[in-house]
C-alpha cells in the first residue's frame, strides 16, 4: 500500500495552499495513506491546519528553532530520516519544494519526478517537459521509493475533514547542518492576492515600457481584486519584481481569469498560463503568438484599453 509523506510549506503561522494541493495529488493514488510533516520553530498552528485537510491520516511535527527558516540544507536530512517506511515523499513545486526535494531524493537514493500533473497510479505519473510543449508519462519500478514535486497549477486544494487527524511530535536524530545560514528576505510588499492562488491575474509585458507604467495594471488589478504578474521581458527590463514573473522559469499559475497586456506570448510564458480558465490578450500586434491561446483577444493600444476597461468595470459595479 502506498504511504505518502508530504512536507508542509508554510510561513510559520499559515499553511500554504500548495500543501493541500499535494494532498490532492496523493489522493489520486488509490488507498494511499497520507501523512504531513511540519518543520517549524513552533509548528502548532500550522499542524492543526494540516490535520484538517481531507484525507490526511496524521501530522508529524518537528519543532526546532533551526527550522524557523525553511532551508533545504537543514530540513533535508531530517525529512529523509522521517521518509523511512514511506513509499512516496511529496513536496510542492514551488521554490521551497524545488529547492528541498531533490536534496531529499539524493539522500534517499531515490528518483525524483518533478512537476507531477497527474498521478495515474502509485508508480505512473504525468509531467510536462520542454516548457510544457510535451507531456511525458513515466513509470517507476514498484520497489523504488519515489520523491516528487507536485505542480500546484494542476490541482485544486482538498476540502477539510470533519475529524482532524492526530498530531504527533517527532524528534529526528539526523543533525541539522550549520553550513548554510539564512541572512534575510526581501519580500515585495503587496496587499494584492498571491499570484499562485489568485483567481484573477493581470499581467504586463515589455510593452508597458517602464515600472511607472505598470501602475495602470496595479490600478486595474485592485478594481478586479486580482494579482499582478509580468513576462520575463518586463522583469528583465526592471519594470516588475522577480517574484512577479510568470512562465517556464517563473511561476506556473492557473487563475480563473488571466489578462495579458502587451505580452507577445513566448512559449516560455505560455507554459506558465496554459491552465488558466480564461485567457484574455490585449496587444498592438495582431500577429502576436499570445492570440493563439487567448480565449478573448483584442488588438489595440494597452495604454488606451486599460483605463477604458477599468472605467467600464467601475460602472458595472
Amino acid at each position, binding site marked *: 500500500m502506498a504511504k505518502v509523506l508530504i512536507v508542509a510549506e508554510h510561513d510559520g503561522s499559515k499553511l500554504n495552499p500548495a500543501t493541500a494541493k499535494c494532498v490532492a495529488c496523493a489522493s489520486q493514488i488509490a488507498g494511499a495513506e497520507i501523512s504531513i510533516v511540519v518543520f517549524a520553530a513552533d509548528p502548532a498552528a500550522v499542524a492543526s491546519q494540516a490535520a484538517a485537510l481531507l484525507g490526511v491520516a496524521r501530522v508529524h511535527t518537528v519543532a526546532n528553532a533551526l527550522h524557523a527558516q525553511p532551508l533545504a540544507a537543514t530540513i533535508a536530512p531530517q525529512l529523509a530520516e522521517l521518509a523511512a517506511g514511506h513509499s512516496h515523499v511529496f513536496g510542492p513545486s514551488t521554490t521551497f519544494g524545488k*529547492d528541498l526535494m531533490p536534496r531529499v531524493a539524493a539522500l534517499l537514493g531515490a528518483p525524483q519526478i518533478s512537476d507531477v500533473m497527474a498521478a495515474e497510479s502509485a508508480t505512473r505519473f504525468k509531467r510536462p517537459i520542454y516548457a510544457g510543449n510535451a507531456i511525458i508519462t513515466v513509470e517507476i519500478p514498484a520497489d523504488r521509493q519515489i520523491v516528487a514535486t507536485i505542480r500546484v497549477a494542476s490541482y485544486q486544494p482538498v476540502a477539510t475533514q470533519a475529524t482532524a487527524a492526530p498530531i504527533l511530535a517527532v524528534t529526528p536524530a539526523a543533525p541539522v547542518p550549520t553550513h548554510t545560514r539564512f541572512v534575510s528576505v526581501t519580500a515585495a510588499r503587496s496587499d494584492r492576492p498571491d499570484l499562485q492562488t489568485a483567481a484573477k491575474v493581470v499581467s504586463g509585458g515589455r510593452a508597458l515600457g517602464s515600472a511607472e507604467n505598470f501602475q495602470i495594471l496595479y490600478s486595474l488589478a485592485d478594481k478586479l481584486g486580482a494579482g499582478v504578474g509580468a513576462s520575463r521581458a518586463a522583469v528583465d527590463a526592471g519594470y516588475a519584481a522577480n517574484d512577479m514573473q510568470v512562465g517556464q522559469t517563473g511561476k506556473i499559475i492557473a487563475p480563473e481569469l488571466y489578462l495579458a497586456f502587451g505580452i507577445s506570448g513566448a512559449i516560455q510564458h505560455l507554459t506558465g498560463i496554459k491552465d488558466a480558465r480564461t485567457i484574455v490578450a490585449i496587444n498592438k500586434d495582431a500577429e502576436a503568438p499570445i492570440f493563439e491561446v487567448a480565449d478573448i483577444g483584442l488588438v489595440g493600444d494597452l495604454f488606451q484599453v486599460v483605463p477604458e476597461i477599468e472605467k467600464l468595470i467601475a460602472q458595472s459595479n
Partner: protein
Amino acid sequence: MKRILVSIKRVVDYNVRIRVKPDGSGVITDGVKMSINPFDEIALEEALRIKEKGLAEEVVAVSIGPADCQQQLRTALAMGADRAIHVQTDAIVEPLTAAQVLKVLADREQPMLAILGKQAIDDDCSQTGQMLAALWQRPQATFASKVEVIGDKAQVTREVDAGLETLEVDLPAVITTDLRLNEPRYVKLPDIMKAKKKPLDTVDPASLGVTPVEVVKAVHFEPPAARSKGIMVKDAQELVAALRSKGLV
C-alpha cells in the same frame, strides 16, 4: 588551486518549437539546433566573472552525454573555461546519475564552487544541483540572482516565490543559477580558435565508478491539450461585455 566546476548540458535550442512524434515515442530532435542549456551558460559566465575578479584560478567545464557534447564543451572553452571534462555515455542520464558523476569529479577536483544551471530546458527537472549538494554534503544556494564570494564563504541572493532571499554558505558549495544572475558574453572568433588548443579530457562513467541506470522509464509522450479557439473583440466595451457574460467581472 581555487577551482570552479561548471556543468554544461547539451539541449535542444531555446528557440526550437518542440513537436511530439506522432507515435508518442518521444519528441522530434533529429536535425534540430542544439545548444548549451541557457542556465548553464549563465553558470559558466558567473564562474568566469569570479575568476576575473581574482577569486578563483581555474574554471573547469563538465558535460555528461554522447560524443556530440564536445561541441558544447568547445563553446564553453571558447567562452573562457580553462579546461573541459567530457563524461561520455550514450545512456540516458537521469539527474541522480549526473549528480553522482559530478560528486566523483568534485572529490577529484576539490572545487571551491560547483555552479550549475537551475534547470535544463529540455526535461525541466531542476534537480541535479541540489542532488550534488546532498551527495557532496555541502551547502546549496539554488536559483541565484547574485553571488558574492567573501573569503571562505559566499553570500547568495536567491529568487524565491516570496521575493529575494539571501543565504550565507560555507565553501565549498553548490550554486544553481537563475536568469538574472548575469548576461553571458558572446564568443569571439579568436577565442574559438584558441579553444581548440585547450585541454578536453574524455572519460567513461564506469572509470568514475558510476553506472547510469534508467529508473524513471518514459512510457509515452503526448502534446499538451490544445486550447479551444478564442474570439476576437474590437474594443474595451466588447471585451468587458464578453467577460461579464462569463461571470468574470
